[in-house]
């Protein structure tokens, strides 16, 4: 029935445009008045809608080492001797009264001191948990933010808030915003790649694909997840008997037919489909080289502790560097199983083994290749964990204070920024919200977070939400 409607907009498409499709119109005109505005000072060109850039960029790309499940700040970057003294004693009510609590509701709140020792690292002499000696050895090159806080106390909404700046699903996540704002540096790989690994904890907590969705932005800005185990990209080879030029002929024919379809139904998804078929063909050429680790020297593999293709965080860190080298804009590595409701002491040992060496190797490797100055590396989870014990040995979800590590492009080195109170409960000195983190990240990439907006349902939707966020200038180099 397609033909008799040729030239018309299908009812369903038209209605769809009320929600998503109008985005196309908006894309072309409304949403980017900046495209037509006078060039601003300082910027530089980009291939996205933020052109020229709002500021001179300090970083070209982001590698986001997302520690999913909620890493304990009290067993990583936030040393709390006072809490150690309080172990076994009731948590003072002055801290917890009226505060939100996840699973410890209605229970007696007892302090649990750091379950592992801390020691000083580097010239800056920062106290870091001794389970993380390799990250500790790089402490003079990184910035630890000890005063993060978030709004959401359960995993999924906290991930959604971290990624998209909103607790409502359907908003674009940060990688999509960045790709939308800056465009891609690479023509033959997706500009936003997601890798997922899990640890020995075996919790297997879900990370929904919504976390790298483009939401209300065109779907070509969504993250593309590579497999961690086995073939990272499936079906990268042509069928047997089909040569590259035959494959290209087929893809050209599919795209030509889809173009005809688009001419009659005007569905913006068709343009994305056409672009993705082109990308698929380019990836057939680029991905084998990306994944061929045979040219990685043994000492590099050893530095990461990686066996390529084993699905580990270490293997993904190495792959992340290779993606970064090839110009991928936003690389997000999820490492799961940080949800230590029980036995935080034992479980954190596994995590340290899995991430300490690989995280340090990635930073070192980027530095050796001269890429660290243009790559923003972010390490952190969706929230932290309670200074109160859960069941005697674990820690519950905690939103009032936790830690992040930042390194690379435009980040001040050897700095510990902000602080929680004596018991590691709430960020009291220089608190940093998730939107502040977003604003800072965009700023380093040359984008003014206030201005990167998309019209949707009558609102100017932006990553930093209606309430906004501030660039944390004190942590900028």
């Amino acid at each position: 029935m397609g033909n008799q409607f040729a030239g018309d907009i299908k009812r369903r498409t038209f209605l769809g445009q009320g929600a998503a499709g109008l985005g196309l119109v908006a894309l072309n005109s409304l949403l980017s008045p900046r495209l037509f505005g006078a060039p601003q000072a300082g910027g530089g060109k980009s291939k996205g809608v933020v052109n020229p850039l709002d500021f001179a960029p300090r970083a070209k790309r982001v590698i986001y080492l997302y520690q999913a499940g909620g890493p304990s700040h009290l067993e990583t970057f936030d040393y709390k001797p006072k809490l150690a003294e309080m172990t076994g004693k009731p948590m003072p009510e002055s801290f917890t009264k009226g505060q939100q609590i996840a699973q410890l509701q209605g229970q007696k709140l007892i302090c649990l001191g750091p379950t592992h020792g801390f020691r000083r690292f580097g010239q800056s002499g920062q106290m870091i948990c001794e389970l993380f000696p390799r990250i500790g050895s790089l402490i003079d090159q990184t910035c630890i933010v000890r005063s993060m806080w978030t709004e959401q106390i359960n995993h999924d909404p906290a991930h959604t808030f971290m990624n998209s700046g909103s607790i409502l699903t359907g908003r674009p996540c940060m990688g999509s915003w960045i790709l939308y704002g800056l465009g891609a540096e690479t023509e033959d790989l997706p500009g936003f790649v997601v890798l997922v690994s899990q640890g020995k904890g075996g919790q297997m907590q879900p990370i929904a694909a919504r976390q790298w969705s483009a939401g209300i932005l065109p779907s070509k800005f969504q993250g593309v997840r590579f497999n961690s185990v086995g073939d990272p990209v499936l079906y990268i080879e042509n069928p047997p008997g089909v040569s590259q030029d035959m494959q290209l002929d087929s893809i050209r024919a599919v795209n030509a037919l889809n173009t005809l379809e688009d001419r009659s139904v005007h569905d913006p998804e068709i343009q994305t489909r056409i672009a993705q078929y082109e990308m698929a063909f380019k990836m057939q050429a680029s991905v084998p080289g990306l994944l061929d680790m045979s040219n990685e020297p043994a000492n590099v593999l050893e530095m990461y502790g990686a066996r390529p293709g084993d699905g580990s965080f270490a293997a993904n860190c190495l792959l992340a560097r290779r993606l970064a080298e090839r110009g991928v804009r936003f690389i997000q590595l999820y490492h799961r199983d940080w949800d230590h409701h029980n036995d935080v002491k034992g479980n954190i040992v596994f995590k340290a083994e899995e991430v300490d060496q690989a995280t340090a190797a990635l930073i070192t490797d980027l530095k050796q290749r001269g890429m660290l100055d243009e790559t923003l590396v972010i390490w952190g989870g969706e929230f932290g964990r309670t200074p109160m014990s859960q069941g005697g040995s674990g820690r519950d979800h905690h939103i009032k204070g936790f830690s992040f590590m930042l390194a690379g492009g435009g980040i001040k080195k050897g700095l510990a920024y902000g602080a929680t109170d004596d018991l590691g409960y709430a960020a009291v000195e220089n608190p940093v919200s998730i939107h502040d983190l977003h604003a800072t990240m965009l700023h380093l990439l040359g984008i003014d977070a206030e201005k990167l907006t998309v019209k949707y349902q009558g609102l100017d939707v932006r990553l930093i939400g209606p309430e906004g966020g501030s660039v944390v200038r004190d942590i900028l180099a």
Partner: protein
Amino acid sequence: LNFDAPTREECTVNRSLSNTPLQALDLLNDPIYVEAARVFAQNAIAHGGTTFETRMDWIFDQALNRQPGAEERSILRGLYDGNLKRFAANPSGARQFLSEGEAPFPRDWNPAELAAMATITRAVLNLHELITRN
């Protein structure tokens, strides 16, 4: 998962709709799709009349519930002719292509013609119109 099926690790009220190069690779190169396209082509030759045009009509009717337009016919004709030439020059390549999957192909048919027709059905099975309901 490539096509937005929820993992069932948690409930999903609304599936996110994605549109990725991984989907394209799957539909183009996954052996099961290649096999499906080839058997579709066998059926088109068996049931779609005797000319290229009637077989096009049959393929579009089966896959898209409509008839192809003139421009569509011309695009697919070009694809068919090009592939027919290449497969005719490379019969072992044609047989490799036809051997993908488990369903047998008729050994007494001209392999180049069947392979070229399977290229057409493979293209049709990759159309946006076919793979999305929206």
